Structures are given as C-alpha cells and as structure tokens.
C-alpha cells in the first residue's frame, strides 16, 4: 500500500540527501520535467553518488525517467539498472511505450541474473492514454497507475482548477482500470503547496472516488496524505485477525477468517497494512 509518493528533483543535493526522512511511503527521483535538458547528466551523476552512500534505503525508490521518445530515455534506463531502485515512473504512457520499456528492462534483467524485476508506474497524462488505460493496467509489470493531472489539462486545453472538475472522468477511468487488475491508483499531486485546506479537500475527494494514494511535490504534504489514505480501523482489525489466525494455524496450510479462505498474498497484504499503521 503506497499512500504517499514524494517527487524530488534529482538535481537538488539537499533534497536528495534528506529524501528518506520525510515518512513518505515512496520517493520519486525526477529526471524528467524538473530537470533542465542541460542538467540531465548532472542529475544522473548526483543520483549515482547518492546511491553509493545509500544503497539500502528503507523506502520504495522510484525514478521518473524521460519518456520513450526523448533522447534521454535509453541513458536513463542504463543508469537505473545499476541503482538500488524498485520502480520506474513512465511519463506520457501508452501501451506501446509500456511494452517498449518492459522489453528493454527484460533484456537488462536477463543479463543481470539476480536483478529483481522493476515495476513500472505509467503516468496517465494524455487524452489518448485514457482510451487504453485498462490495457496499460493489465500489464504484468505495472504496479500502479499515476494520474498526471497537470499535463492532462494541458492536453485537454482546459484550465487546471483546484476542485478538479476537469479531471473527474480521468480520475475515475484510472481508478476503474487499476481496480480491475488489482493495481494501485495514485492520484495527481496537489500543486498549491501553501493551501493545506485545499490539499485535504482534494485528497479526500480522490479517496472517495477510489484512489489508493497520492503523489506530492513537497514534504509538507506527506503527513496529510498519509493520514487520509491510511486504512480504516475496520481494515486494521481485520488484518490483525488474519495475522493472529495465521499464527494459530502455523504449519497447517490454508485457513479461513470470517468464512473467507486466506492465502499467502492476503496474509502479506495484512502484514504490510499493519506495518504501515504502526509506522
């Protein structure tokens, strides 16, 4: 369960250095929009040095790469394969670009035998992506979908408003596609950093629609997002029941809780949920 994902521009040493202390569930080092073309190399070098000192971060690390049509795409991937990261965030995602990235990653992963498969988090930020979002979500490497509200509004040629009326359909399509394939639905960042009330309202709205987490662009937003996207007490109690039942059924194979059969993924989810709650 990823409640909060914090974007950090990969060319800012002070922010990179403190990336792991803000209690976000995941950090996204950005090589794309936040980095000027002349600084792409510098950002990669900075991250390379950072990972040398911090090879084992206790947090999910994702890299937002440049899109597949950009001249930086291949170089981004070559670097990332040497870094201790869990996932790649793919801008301007389409099914074609997801497959292209997947093939490239598979090639690299095959060469490096012990490399854990990297996830892909496609950013749904173009009108045409919304017509294939369910196919994107179905891809085995896709862990979550991120709605990119700002770029989408640009693509739609509409004003991006704080109440988000213009991205309502997109939010729902992303949510339905993600849920249909058991993936996480990550909401677009709320970009008005100084509007705490606006963030609460926006996050609550997204959660009501079915988003499971929210990206953010400033550490000051993390506590609010974590709180609003944390599980309910009912969910926590149920997870505790599962973990207790597993302990009692130790070595006896499958078991049930409240009449429902419990298998390994459900146990893992319950444990992960409790881990997040106690954090």
């Amino acid at each position, binding site marked *: 369960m990823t409640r909060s994902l914090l974007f950090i521009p990969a060319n800012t040493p002070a922010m990179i250095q403190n990336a792991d202390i803000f209690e976000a569930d995941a950090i996204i080092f950005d090589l794309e929009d936040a980095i000027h073309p002349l600084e792409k190399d510098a950002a990669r070098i900075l991250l390379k040095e950072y990972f040398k000192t911090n090879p084992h971060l206790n947090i999910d690390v994702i890299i937002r790469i440049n899109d597949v049509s950009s001249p930086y795409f291949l170089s981004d991937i070559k670097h990332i394969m040497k870094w201790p990261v869990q996932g790649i965030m793919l801008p301007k995602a389409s099914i074609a670009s997801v497959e292209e990235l997947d093939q490239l990653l598979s090639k690299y992963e095959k060469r490096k035998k012990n490399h854990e498969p990297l996830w892909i988090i496609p950013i749904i930020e173009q009108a045409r992506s919304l017509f294939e979002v369910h196919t994107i979500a179905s891809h085995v490497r896709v862990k979550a979908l991120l709605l990119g509200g700002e770029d989408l509004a640009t693509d739609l040629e509409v004003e991006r408003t704080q109440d988000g009326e213009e991205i309502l359909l997109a939010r729902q399509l992303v949510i339905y596609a993600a849920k249909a394939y058991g993936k996480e639905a990550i909401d677009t960042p709320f970009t008005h950093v100084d509007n705490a009330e606006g963030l609460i309202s926006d996050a609550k709205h997204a959660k009501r629609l079915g988003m499971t987490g929210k990206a953010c662009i400033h*550490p*000051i937003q993390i506590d609010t997002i974590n709180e609003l996207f944390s599980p309910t007490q009912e969910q926590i109690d149920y997870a505790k029941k599962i973990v207790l039942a597993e302990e009692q059924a130790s070595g006896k194979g499958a078991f049930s809780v409240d009449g429902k059969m419990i298998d390994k993924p459900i146990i893992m989810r319950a444990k992960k949920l409790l881990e997040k709650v106690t954090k």
Partner: protein
Amino acid sequence: MNLIKNTLNRQIPEGYTPFQGANNLIKTNERKIIDEVIIGGGNKPVESDIASVFDKLDIKDGMTLSFHHHLRNGDAVLNLVLMEIKKRKLKHITLAPSAIFPVHEPMVPLIKNQSITKIYTNYINGPVAKAIEEGHLKELLVMDTHGGRARAIESGELTIDVAFIATPAVDHAGHGNGIEGPSQCGTLGYAIPDLLYAKHKVLVTDHIVDRVKKVDIDGRYVDMILHIPSIGDPEGIKSGTTKPTRDPIQLKIAKNTARLIEELGLIKPHFNFQCGAGGTSLAVAEALKQRMTANKIKGDFASGGITSFLVDMHEKGLFEKLYDVQCFDLEAIKSYQRNKHHLMISASEYGNPYAKPIVNDLDVVVLGATEIDLDFNVNVTTDSFGHLIGGSGGHADTAFGAKVTIITTNLMKSRLSMVKSSVKTITTPGESVDILVTERGIAINPKRQDLINKLKDSKLEITTIDELMKRAHHITGEPKMIPSSDKIIGLIRYRDGSIIDSLYQL
C-alpha cells in the same frame, strides 16, 4: 597567561573560578546581594543632550556603563553614548550591555583605540563580535547568561557606574515602561538589575507623559531622564522569526519533539513550558497547542521571550500565565498591555541561580544548538570555526532549571554534522541537557536513565548520540578538527560565576 583546566577539561586563565559542575557552587555558596541604590521620589531632572548627562554624572575614564537589549537591532541608545565617549576621548571604559547587535558597529573603532577596553555581555554578533574575535579588545570579553548577569550585578561582582536604560515611555517622576510611545518594546526585564544596583541610572526616552499607564521602571531608583528625539528604529526593535517554521526538516523535528514530550507524560495539567522564538521551537509549540487543545490540558505558565504564538495559547486558556522577560513581537506587547496574567519578570526572577528563579519551575524547555557533542555539551556562542555568533542568553539558565531539557537541531547543516566529538565552545554543560532531537533520530543523555526507561517502547527512533554522529559522518564524511590559536580573548562565564570555557582569537 597561566592556564588551568575546569571539570569539563577546558582551559581557562588562572585566577578565575573554574567550572565545577552545574550545581556545585550554587549549592555551597551563599547568595551575595549589595544594597539597592535608591535615589528617592519626586520629579526627576530632564536633560535634552547626552553631554549634560556626562557632565552631571561626571562620567570619566575607567567607568563601567550598562545597557539593556530590549531595542535589539534597532537600539540607538548605546550608539548615542558611544558617540559621547568618542567626542570626549574617554579611555578604559567598560561596557556591560546585555546584548550587542550589528547596529552597534560604532563600537568597533572605540575598541580598537582602547576607549573601550572591557566588555560584559550575554549575546554578541556582527561587526563588534568580529573585532573582538580578531583580538582588538584589550581585556577579556566576558559572556554571561541572562541569570548570571543578574547574579553578577546584585553581588557587586559587576559594578555599574551608570546604567543607561532605554525606556519607551517615562513620566516626570522617573517611572517608566516599554509599552507606550513610538519605540515600544514591551517588558523591560533585563534592565531591572541595572536599575536596582547601578550607582546612577539614566532613563533615556523619546516619549514623556504625565503619568505612565504601568510602572515597570520604578522612579525611586532613577537619577535623571534624558529626552531625545528617538531611542530606536521600530523595524529593528522587532525580533526576527516569530512564526513556526515551514521547513520540512525542521517540521519533522518539531513534530517528533512534541510527540516525545507527550510520550514522556509531560503534557499534563499545570505543566510549565518554555521554548525559543525560532521557527522550530514555535512549530513545537504549535504541535503542543494541538495536543493540549485536543486533551483539554491547561498548563500553569509559559515563560521567557514571549511571542504572539504564546499569547494565543494564553488567550485560548492553554497557559494560565505568561512570565515575560522580553517581548518578541508587537502582539506580545499588546498582550502585556491587556492581559492581567501576562506578567513581567526581571532577569533575576527569570534565571538568577540564587533567586529561586522561574526557570527552576519549568517542566520542559526546548532549545536550539549550533553544535552539540557526545557529552551533550552545547555551543550556542560560536560556530565551528570559533566565530562569535550569539551567546547563552537564557540557554544555560533554562537548561539547568527545567526538569527536561530538549535540544532540537538539524543533524546536518551545510554538509556538516551538528553532532561533534567535542564542541568548539561550551555554552551549556551536557549535564543540563537531557535529549537531542534531530531529523534522523533522538538521543537521550545516558544520565537520564529514567527518560530512557519511559521511552523504551516508543515508536520514535531513539538512538545514541554516538550513532547520530556516525549517521551524519556516513553522509558528510568526518570533518577535520579546526585548529584554534592559543590566545584567549574571552571567557564564557557560567551562571554561578565560574568559567565554563574560553574564547580564542581567530
């Protein structure tokens, strides 16, 4: 100069009392108080130029003149006196301002030509600090705590010939306050020891009224009034940051500090609290405010420098009283005018170790640090190079008095670890410091086993101070020690009068 070592292994010049522990001298020594210097009642003479004051009080070579710092970086009074010293070519003057700010730059040439040869103060930064660290002051700079300065004055150890007391409003009987007139600064707590014990007292004002609304300066102690067009610049009188931080690292530190205070069970009815006016401290106060409001907890008092933030907590009923030694902003000044439980305290009532001070009733104090070492000694006087950038103020006083003293600081600033194996300068001894909160973990002084036990099941990241330094060095690398010169240019005087550390020429 022969040197001896104190119990913290710091070298100090022979002939001074070495620091022997935070409470040893206070426990064994009697309080010494000289007689108060009462001039008498009736209307006071009003002078309109500084030269007349110098003439009438026969201010001459070798005298000691004192000042308070309530006008902060807007102060015009000390500079007015400096100009007269310069004009008269006086020599060997000792100054005892409770703080020195960049605005006091005109002091520099007078230090260099030995018109001013000795300085006592509690806080110093800016051009005067630079001149002193370069070795231009003939005698040693002595840096006291706020409580220690009051002790030194009342005991006669620091004898003041003339106190120039900037007073925003004065009446003809010599009564005054800081809450009327164009140069309002609020309470005048730091001026009170000077008022009581200096041989002569001059109220310097730009606002004379028939009768002051509130008497914070008692006219019976006053010799004369100096009426000038302006005692200060209101913009400079305002303190710096008096809003909670928005910096995410400092916010994390503040959030964890508030959680720590709660987990220690310190947020309870009748608790007493003090924090600084910096952004992190105020963010701690904000987090405390939310917890106190949610749990309907009412504390007895908040103390120290008072900000609008503490005023709000007081007016919302979260603290019964505000004990105010100085106001940090306009809202605090207004509160002192309208709230009957917003009370002025003198520097002595605040922190004098022999006066059963308010600091001894604190349950929690949250303080900053420019450096802290593995023995929890804290430096707020110099930076790592030895440049003078501040001073104790009430740091060592409150750290000693509070039941739990919490230091908050970023573990790293500008690629340097703030936890050092040994701090450059000791302002507050580690035995008075209980907890260090950083963004990468919380360390508890091993001497406070009671606190360690209370937090053994805490979800907060409790670690050791050695581990924090290791974490910082893992990122920053281990810095080389910065060598000092051997020439001592000043002394850090602990609140009991002993010398806790020396300052060295750069």
